[in-house]
């Protein structure tokens, strides 16, 4: 049986769970694999609904992925009226181009791909986003719904620093206890002393300063 369209799934969720905010994230590529962005408060309920709904039966979570969206800066040119001093000393009001920069804060994202073993359909992609990349990196864990997500959520916690609230055993899984960095984040830099040429370069810069 074919999977309902993503808007239909969204409508089903919103009808079944009052107050749940579901946003469809469009995928412009030829795959057109659109996804559903869930809010934190209702995410476990929505996940349970997707798993247990008679028509959907998304009983199999194949993968959990972390995504790092760094802070971005957009700049736009706007025209501003300004007092401009001419060469002869007279001031006049003129339109001047000014570049205004706006910082868009980044966030971390956990992406779940859901399939149905029973109905032989999928995937349905759902996303959870953290508030930012620094001090509030919490999302609700979906391990209570799909047990198979346990190790993959641990991996996303290990490498991206996404904290899954409600996870039964949230520890680092690949790196050791006591490791402080999150190596899969875009702004991760390995320790410079490991690569001799980089270390030498850094030493050279210091001596110039």
């Amino acid at each position, binding site marked *: 049986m074919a999977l309902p369209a993503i808007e239909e799934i969204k409508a089903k969720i919103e009808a079944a769970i009052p107050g749940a905010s579901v946003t469809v994230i469009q995928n412009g590529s030829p795959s057109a694999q659109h996804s559903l962005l869930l809010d934190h408060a209702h995410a476990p309920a929505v996940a349970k609904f997707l798993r247990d709904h008679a028509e959907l039966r998304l009983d199999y979570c194949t993968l959990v992925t972390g995504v790092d969206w760094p802070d971005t800066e957009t700049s736009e040119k706007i025209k501003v009226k300004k007092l401009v001093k001419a060469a002869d000393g007279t001031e006049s009001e003129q339109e001047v181009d000014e570049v205004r920069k706006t910082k868009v804060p980044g966030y971390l994202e956990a992406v779940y791909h859901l399939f149905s073993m029973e109905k032989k359909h999928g995937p349905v992609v759902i996303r959870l986003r953290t508030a930012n990349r620094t001090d509030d990196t919490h999302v609700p864990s979906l391990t209570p719904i799909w047990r198979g997500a346990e190790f993959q959520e641990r991996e996303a916690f290990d490498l991206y620093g996404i904290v899954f609230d409600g996870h039964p055993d949230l520890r680092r899984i690949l790196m050791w*206890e006591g490791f402080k*960095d999150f*190596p899969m984040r875009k702004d991760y830099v*390995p*320790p410079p*002393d490991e*690569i001799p040429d980089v270390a030498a370069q850094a030493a050279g810069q210091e001596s110039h300063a």
Partner: protein
Amino acid sequence: MPDDLKDLKIELSKNGIFTTTLEEIYNWGRKNSVWPLTFGLACCAIEMIATTMARYDLARFGAEVFRPSPRQADLIIVSGTVTKKMAPQVVRLYNQMPEPKYVIAMGACAISGGPFRDGYNVLKGIDRYIPVDVHIPGCPPRPEALIHAFMTLQKKIDEQALAGSSRPRHLQKDLPSEFPVPEFGEHGLEPPQNDLVFHDAPGNPLKVIQ
């Protein structure tokens, strides 16, 4: 051995008299019974296993006895990617081997980190922590390359002097036979390398490759 003695030895052997030196017979015995440690890390280990099998037959060189304990091994073949999590165990295994002991770093990963050099989780060459006798490039090196490395090691063992200032590390009392095991730090392994073995200072007795 001085040249005139060598000539004499050849002359005697032509007349059916076999002469040797303690050094020669000792090294001859050692180089033909190098027992490696049963130890593999990644895909290179598959090539190492193939080398010991019938087609390539490492037994021809007296090295077919892979010992499951470091206490009985003479050689550790670091065959494959050394992750930062595995590096302390590799150094510990090396430390547990009795002298004289030798190291072959097999493959691009073991000698430098290879294709994973820019990764956060891979040690950039095992020669940061233990002295390596023979490096083999390749990804993975073919069994012939491992055999060549093995023969290079045999030649090296054969040339080791028992006395004098050029004698190897295990015959010099003041040189270490164990090396510090790195620890897991907050950003990587602590220390990132053992300067005693890693740095290419001239005349460093622990830097095996000159």
